[in-house]
């Protein structure tokens, strides 16, 4: 149990470091995906070690979180493509103007 939680914490930290520091917008999104996956691993680990594994809450949470993460990836990557078309760059530093 602790091993899973530690792996999850490590994944979250790695994703956070990437999302905070990388300059490519796609890699920032990848870091966010890693953080979401770390949360999912926690859900499943706590479900596995809960008192009654027949209660489906943990698994359902993970499944719905995966679905929401897929939606987030869709919109995020569409935004990256739109920004790239506008600024001719996928670099988050170049997209600093709010006025098009």
């Amino acid at each position, binding site marked *: 149990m602790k091993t899973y939680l530690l792996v999850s914490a490590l994944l979250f930290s790695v994703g956070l470091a990437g999302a905070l520091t990388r300059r490519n917008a796609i890699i920032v999104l990848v870091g966010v995906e890693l953080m979401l996956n770390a949360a999912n691993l926690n859900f499943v680990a706590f479900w596995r070690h809960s008192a009654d594994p027949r209660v489906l809450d943990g*698994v359902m949470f*993970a499944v719905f979180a995966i679905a929401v993460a897929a939606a987030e990836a869709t919109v995020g990557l569409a935004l990256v493509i739109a920004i790239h078309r506008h600024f001719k760059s996928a670099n988050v530093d170049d997209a600093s103007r709010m006025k098009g």
Partner: protein
Amino acid sequence: MDLILALLAGATVGAAVAAMALRDVVHCVLFLTVSLIGLALLYLKLGAEFVGFVQVLVYVGAVAVLVVFAVLLTRGGDAPTERIANAPWSGALVAAAVFAMLARAILGSPSLGSPSPETPVPTLSVKAIGEGLTGGYVLPLQIVALLLTAAMIGGVVIAMREKEGE
């Protein structure tokens, strides 16, 4: 801690580190895929087969391909920059601080302290999940369906080519 768990955990975290640290974006995405597969295997090891297969289908099958497409679409104009990260040390420091806090909470937690006697891996049939999805979880299911539809339409609208001459 058994060997398989150690190997899976090492592969998953190592691939995640590589995905965040490598210079070439395509390599990053490939290592992200490795990390996601490792996570799916961890789910399988935890006995959540459905989540593991959903992870493979959605993440490895769809999201990874989507990210690769985005990488290839946004490649053209970028000159390869010398720096891949802004202030990498402060970001790593923040992440290390977060990890230290989380690890302290995990290792110091009294409720996690006593190692529970190794319970047999619970069998969770897909039938039970299906009954749950159509029974008690039907409202979240509908909301997710609406969200996915909205996200799909939104993605198409956002990524659609801007009108000429605007």
